[in-house]
């Protein structure tokens, strides 16, 4: 029986058509995947169903009745609930307050707490109502979102890329919860670009490419390769590594400890590793386990004791970013807009921003703009950055293009050591492939590359050795060859206090 019917949904933004004539049905009790790479229009589609975006054309029927929610509250009232990819949570508030904010008519505080405890037991999602959300791990924060939805007995639960913040073990538990919900008659709309998990979980899948539906099928009957091709529209070459011998140690981190930089940050606890010339070291971990802090400590944004970090034998822990750049250490933080790049500045200015030290673009205090422009143009050409001109503001570029520019800017400075955090986050498949290839080429040329990533498939694909970051502590690095998802999951701390509760449920 059909729960939700989409008929010809179309939504255009200036310059892009996010959704074009999208139609498909979701049945009751069905787990329905919407598959597509970044930028394919998945988010716009679910926002339309949740009332955050109003489609330009087309209509929706919920249980046969026209459905056009004017805002999320109307959607919730009609029985649609959503778990966001970037959580819609309030750090400084308690779990119970966060949940109350997502409900139409929350009960009195006491009754609500009881409901939270009951739901968390029923679905094996341990959660204490009076904790402050800012102190929770990413997995726990997702539980807050899920329970917030479940307390409203939704007919349709939308999950937007829910596994990107979970360890493999936590993913299994989440899938158990979702199957239980589907068995009880709740429909689930599951948004993802990860093929394996869709095959595991869903009976139906709709693939979006450039805003259009390009296929609806049963994912259990398709190979990963077939699905990937449908998603991307062309063959993608797996990154190609020219093997290089492991060279001398370049970066040595010894007992790196640092307090949390802000209230809801993570403290770094005695982190040690060595990075050799010609290798790619991967650091995996679930969001919020100290990745940002580790990058800040390595790039020089956060200072530590000088000898905690040594570059070719010289202690640099107390030096600022430009001193480290001069010595050959470059970095690209996770957030493109406003951290790795200044969104309102031109690409030329953004190129100058980090490259002026190594390329001597400042002379007696004055900026050499012609040379900076030439450098920006070189990065644009070498990394195939699609932009009208180097004078274009960074914010006008798509995520993939800006990321290619940011990574390209650092690689083009010929660093001895390159540190990247989430190099392909929110980037389309072809740009991701290009970035991964560029990182491998840099290592093959004899530099050392540290890739911090939450995308475990990426880590498996491009790194030589792997270490796990969990609550600010780093595991021993092990060779990547021969690692399984399950092994990685255990290194990442397994299911963070979930297993017991789940076993009981």
């Amino acid at each position: 029986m059909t729960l939700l019917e989409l008929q010809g949904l179309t939504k255009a933004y200036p310059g892009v058509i996010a959704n074009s004539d999208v139609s498909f049905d979701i049945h009751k009790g069905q787990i329905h995947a919407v598959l597509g790479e970044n930028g394919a229009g998945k988010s716009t589609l679910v926002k339309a169903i949740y009332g955050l975006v109003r489609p330009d054309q087309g209509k929706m029927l919920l249980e046969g009745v026209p459905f056009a929610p004017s805002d999320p509250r109307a959607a919730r009232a009609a029985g649609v609930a959503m778990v966001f990819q970037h959580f819609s949570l309030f750090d400084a508030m308690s779990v119970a307050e966060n949940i109350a904010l997502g409900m139409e008519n929350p009960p009195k505080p006491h009754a609500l707490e009881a409901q939270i405890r009951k739901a968390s037991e029923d679905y094996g999602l341990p959660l204490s109502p009076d904790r402050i959300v800012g102190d929770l791990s990413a997995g726990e924060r997702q539980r807050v979102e899920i329970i917030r939805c479940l307390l409203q007995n939704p007919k349709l639960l939308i999950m937007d890329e829910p596994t990107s913040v979970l360890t493999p073990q936590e993913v299994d538990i989440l899938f158990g919860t979702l199957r239980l919900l589907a068995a009880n008659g709740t429909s689930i709309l599951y948004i993802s670009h990860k093929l394996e998990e869709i095959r595991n979980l869903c009976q139906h899948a709709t693939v979006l490419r450039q805003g259009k539906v390009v296929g609806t099928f049963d994912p259990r009957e398709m190979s990963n390769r077939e699905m990937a091709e449908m998603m991307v529209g062309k063959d993608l070459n797996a990154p190609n590594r020219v093997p290089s011998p492991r060279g001398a140690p370049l970066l040595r981190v010894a007992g790196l400890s640092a307090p949390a930089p802000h209230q809801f940050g993570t403290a770094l606890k005695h982190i040690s590793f060595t990075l050799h010339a010609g290798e790619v070291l991967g650091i995996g971990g679930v969001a919020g386990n100290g990745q940002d802090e580790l990058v800040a400590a390595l790039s020089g944004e956060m200072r530590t004791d000088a000898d905690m970090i040594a570059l070719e034998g010289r202690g640099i822990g107390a030096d600022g970013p430009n001193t480290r750049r001069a010595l050959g250490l470059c970095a690209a933080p996770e957030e493109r807009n406003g951290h790795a790049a200044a969104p309102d500045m031109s690409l030329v200015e953004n190129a100058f921003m980090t490259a002026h030290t190594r390329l001597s673009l400042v002379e007696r205090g004055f900026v050499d703009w012609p040379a900076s422009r030439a450098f920006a143009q070189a990065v644009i050409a070498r990394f195939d950055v699609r932009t009208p001109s180097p004078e274009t503001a960074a914010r006008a570029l798509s995520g993939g293009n800006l990321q290619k520019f940011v990574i390209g800017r650092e690689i083009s400075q010929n660093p001895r050591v390159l540190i990247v955090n989430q190099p392909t986050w929110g980037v389309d498949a072809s740009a991701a492939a290009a970035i991964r290839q560029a990182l491998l080429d840099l290592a093959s040329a004899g530099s050392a590359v540290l890739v911090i990533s939450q995308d475990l498939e990426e880590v498996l694909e491009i790194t030589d050795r792997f270490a796990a970051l969990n609550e600010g502590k780093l595991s021993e690095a092990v060779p990547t060859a021969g690692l399984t998802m399950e092994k990685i999951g255990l290194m990442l701390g397994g299911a963070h206090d979930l297993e017991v509760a789940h076993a009981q449920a």
Partner: protein
Amino acid sequence: MDINPILLLAALMVASTPILLAAIGELVVERAGVLNLGVEGMMIVGAVCGYIAGHSSGDPYLGFLGAVFAGAAVSLVFAVLTQFLMTNQVATGLGLTLFGLGLSALIGMRAEGTPDLTVAKLALPILSDIPVLGAILFRHDLVVYLSILLVAGVWAFLTYTRAGLILRAVGENHEAAHALGYNVRLVRVLAILFGGGCAGLAGAYISLVRVPQWIDGITAGAGWIALAIVVFASWKPWRLIAGAYLFGGVTVLQLNLQAEGLKIPVEYLSMAPYLATIIVLVMIRAGRAPASLGKPFHPSS
């Protein structure tokens, strides 16, 4: 020295009331994630409008009411500019102060006072008979009690009501509040109007009770001090009272010392409230500000 401590403390409450009123309004605005630096401007417009409304009608309470509306009306300009035209909140708030100073002087040219307009003291039965405390706390005019009731009301509103929860949510993370379907702009506009009304009332209290007359620039920085007190209070309502009374205390003491004819020249004594503000700003470690404070919000996806 011959300063009567009971009278001093009672005067302290009167001197603190305008700062407290303006601060409680600004606290609500900032908890909603908006930084309105125009408190001084809204206050002074309230002061002149309240003065005119009070004296032309002969009823001070109509004056207070007029000031509330005047303050809210000026704050509406700020609300439209920052919430709908996405202007920089710092610059707009400063503009509001400059505009308010000019506008009040313009309106105030025709302000004429009637000498016998007074705001009655309301001695609370029984309580006012308590020795010492009664004279200090319970023999004031209605607005003094109202200012404390407002603090209690705002505290209860933020802590216990759903609307208060939504307001805090909007100030904490406006993107998330928007994603959950709350009307961020509406909440903020209402908060700004409340802040404007409170500032207007605060201004009228200065021109109708504290001074009481109309002079250009009468608020003399009280609005800025109110802003400082919100930081001092770490955005918590009850702490505002401590902050406001501390500054009221410095002001009253300074005036009394002037009257006593101390060795320090009069001019230098009048710097005290401003210096005290700086010292307090340095000494206290402010708590955590609302996370979205001062950041612009545009509901695009």
